[in-house]
């Protein structure tokens, strides 16, 4: 196994272009598990975690967006001021692995793996993030919902690299919840991100681990938008319950050794209801 360690973006894009079969790693927290278990045996690895352009983030107050380099780590996403700009992403990041994993794992890697259980992905889906891709010859951007194609399948071409993610900074409560059978360091059995936008009086909900990829719950969102009061920050108990039912209905989970489909569906409904109640604490 050979490894290339570019330190600049153009260099990274060039070597990815010349080695389209190479495995691109940032933190390596997904890739190394597969390599150590013998499930993946790459001949060439390109490590992009030392590419300076991928390691930083910028806030654009006028456009109300944050652009996060693909190799920014979960630990960095948990720090101020990013944690205040996108609180749900900070909460999701805290649920990832152990401190060591959070120091290595990156948001770009989460997208690249595109596991249905990826902890950052429901947040990106709920907030309507845009993924920026580049190759040696072109650049393109696409909504995260288009980027995520299926279980561990994305729109990324072999010569492309995820360079950054642009995330809208919304005014309004947002949060992330995740169910696992352990109190930390666990793969999600069900997860959910709820974000509110007071400027449009809208509620967004994305759920994870309950389908082949992250699911935006359009029916639940539309129902909540009509039923809650942004002014009083209120939702009736019936609204909270119905919101959970709609979220559960939008999910289509599977049975596996971690949990049954029925439990996952139930759990994601509970998470959705509880998140809505956190966003709208008054009856």
């Amino acid at each position: 196994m050979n490894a290339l360690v570019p330190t600049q973006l153009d260099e990274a894009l060039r070597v990815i272009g010349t080695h389209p079969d190479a495995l691109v790693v940032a933190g390596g927290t997904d890739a190394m598990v597969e390599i150590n278990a013998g499930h993946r045996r790459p001949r060439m690895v390109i490590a992009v975690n030392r590419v300076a352009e991928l390691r930083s983030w910028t806030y654009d107050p006028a456009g109300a967006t944050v652009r996060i380099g693909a190799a920014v780590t979960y630990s960095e996403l948990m720090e101020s001021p990013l944690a205040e700009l996108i609180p749900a992403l900070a909460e999701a990041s805290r649920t990832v692995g152990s401190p060591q994993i959070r120091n290595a794992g990156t948001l770009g890697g989460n997208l690249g793996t595109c596991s249905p259980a990826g902890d950052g992905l429901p947040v990106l889906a709920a907030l309507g993030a845009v993924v920026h891709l580049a190759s040696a010859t072109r650049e393109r951007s696409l909504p995260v919902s288009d980027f995520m194609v299926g279980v561990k399948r994305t729109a990324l071409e072999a010569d492309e690299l995820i360079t950054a993610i642009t995330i809208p900074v919304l005014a309004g409560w947002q949060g992330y919840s995740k169910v696992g059978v352990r109190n930390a360091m666990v793969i999600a059995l069900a997860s959910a991100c709820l974000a509110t936008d007071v400027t449009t009086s809208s509620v967004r909900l994305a759920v994870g681990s309950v389908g082949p990829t992250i699911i935006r719950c359009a029916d639940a969102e539309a129902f909540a938008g009509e039923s809650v009061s942004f002014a009083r920050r209120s939702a009736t108990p019936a609204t909270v319950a119905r919101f959970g039912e709609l979220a559960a209905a939008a999910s289509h989970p599977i049975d596996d050794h971690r949990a049954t489909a029925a439990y996952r569906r139930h759990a994601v409904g509970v998470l959705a209801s509880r998140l809505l109640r956190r966003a709208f604490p008054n009856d």
Partner: protein
Amino acid sequence: MSALVGERTRAGRLGDSITRPDGTAKVQGSFQFSSDLNAENCLWGATLRSPHPSARIVSIDLSAAYRISGVEAIVTAADVPGQATYGLISQDQPVFASDVVRYVGEPIAAVAADHPETCRRALEAIVVVYEVMAPLTDPERVLDGSHPPIHPDGNLIRHQRVLCGDANATGPIVVEGTYEIGMQDQAFLGLEAALALPDPGAAGVELYVATQWLHEDQKQIAACLGLAPAAIRLTLGGVGGAFGAREDISLQVHTCLLALRTGRPVRMHYSREESFLGHVHRHPARIWMRHHATADGLLVKVEARMVFDGGAYASTSSAVLINAVTHTQGPYRCPNAVVDGYAVRTNNLPCGAMRGFGVVQACFAHEGQMDRLAAACGIDPVDLRLRNAMVIGDKLITGQVIENVAPVERCIRETAALPLPDEPVGGHDRNTMRLPGGAGRTADAGHIRRGIGFAVSIKNLMYSEGFDDYSTARCRLADGVVTLKFATSEVGQGFVTIAGQIARSVLGVDEVVLGTIDTGVGSAGSTSASRQTWMSGGAVNAACLKVRGLLFDAVAALYHVDANSLSIEGSDIVGASGALRVSVLEASTGLEFDETVEYRHKPTEDLDDNGQGDCHTAFAFVAHRAVVDVDPELGLVKVIQIATAQDVGRALNPLSVLGQIEGGIAQGLGLAVMEEIIMSEGRVRNPSFTDYLLPTFLDMPSVVVSLIEEPDPIAPLGAKGVGEPPTISSTPAIVAAIRDAIGRPLDRVPVRPIDIIG
């Protein structure tokens, strides 16, 4: 090669909380575990394993593997020069499968090559043709006789009945339940690893290995290699935890065989996934119990049927079963009993020793029953246990009389009196991460219900059923320095600390040097059954006393005093009259005393057909109280506090005792709410730490401890074993607390979210 060699333990005598000689190295990462061992010109070894739980081996073709450059040797069953099978109690497990495979992961061949990658490719190149058969995975199919034998020894490993008193006795209150215990893994962090160095001409081999019992390994390896035991010299490699999983042979014979075949050093390591397949586990069990009691809650009779799934090979299943059936009553008086226990063979993973050794399963059932009984009688669960608590002189259902200290009532009362957590649900800082669901922030305080549960246990210490259980220690005193030599496996329990404390207390020295832990001295027996402080501690103590006797004789002769009048005071020898005071250093300068002693506990008996007999040596007791927070809607649990009062006899090193208590509780918590090897049709679904979940810091509760110190006159140092009890009743206490929180029965561990939401 062990990091402990020649290590001088820091000053400290019995009763002092001194720290471990290997502690700093382990924390800093410089401790040499057996997986760190290497030698010049060393080859790597790897094992080919069966992908099927049950299959006939039609053919094995090694030719393609041999053509790979760097492959030095491949061995199969045909290359085993001695006994083809091994095992701790019955030798029923093949070194390599030759005709049939009986579980997923069963070894078929081993390869030695120049690099792990070469090994991997060689394993891939070995062509095994299987005729796949339907696996036997349901223990009940063994008992109903509907499945043909899957092994020449048959499918029933052992049946043991216990009949005590009047089988027809009953009482006004009768409660029954069926309890299930899942398969738990020992999950030690230091994976299986060994380094074998062959003698010239393949006359013998030197093996560095992480194990619980060097001499038993030596015996079994020698038998399989067809060599004299003395030709196999074992040295303890640094051990990263054991918990029973290193009692059986895993890679020992394979590594030695490859080294002898190639004439070169061979190192072998298991991966985590391989480790799940490569060692025995805690027996999954199904236990039915029916308790009969008076209206006041006094036990009249216990009935039980226990089925333990031993998996493909016997390992210690028969002894595990005996522990379970003889502990059916728990730490309670019970005059009548009818118990039937079965250990059966299936095509599931082989099961054997794990911390608690059969008593974990029995205790989960009898404590569930005690709570059912308390509810049926309308008596507080703690009060019910107090009414039935056994005392010295009480008879077990085996007819054995409890002779050692039995402070069951004190364990219960002191546990109940320990302070409950003062924090509200969610903690004083109202952090959602402190609620069930933890970092996932799934709940708010209003979703949570708190519950409290109680459980008590009895655990036998040392080996049972007539086993010649002994330990050997050698003590040498010269120029004021003591050197101790023993073969006691240090697996993390802390005997290397205790041994020095004993020598300092008995001989008044400051400096104690520990010799290499190897087979250069007699057997110490296994580091299991909570036995080493008692057994090897007893041996070190006896060896030191013998040396002290010789030292006193020398001093008596020199100073013309009566040796019987001498004693140790600090680091001096003093005479009874006070006239004589000479330091041990001065008195031993120029002299050398060197004594080796074997220590034995009193003999035990086999059980008869009715399960009667003094089969155990001694017992320890403990009570646990659990406080848990439960999210009933999501089925998630957070254990908030465990309170425990444990019968320790005498705490020789209180810090070390506390370590055992906290660690044991973590393992008991794991079984209660998350740890399980999930099998379907003989295959493991979760052989990784991604899916086999162990408790993290955020799962571990605060632990409040009361040590009950009533030195046991039967124990050589007054100290009882402390390693197993914390694991045993912590599990049922936690489950009782969850039941209390949700108000419904839970009869299976680990408790899963779906069990809680119902």
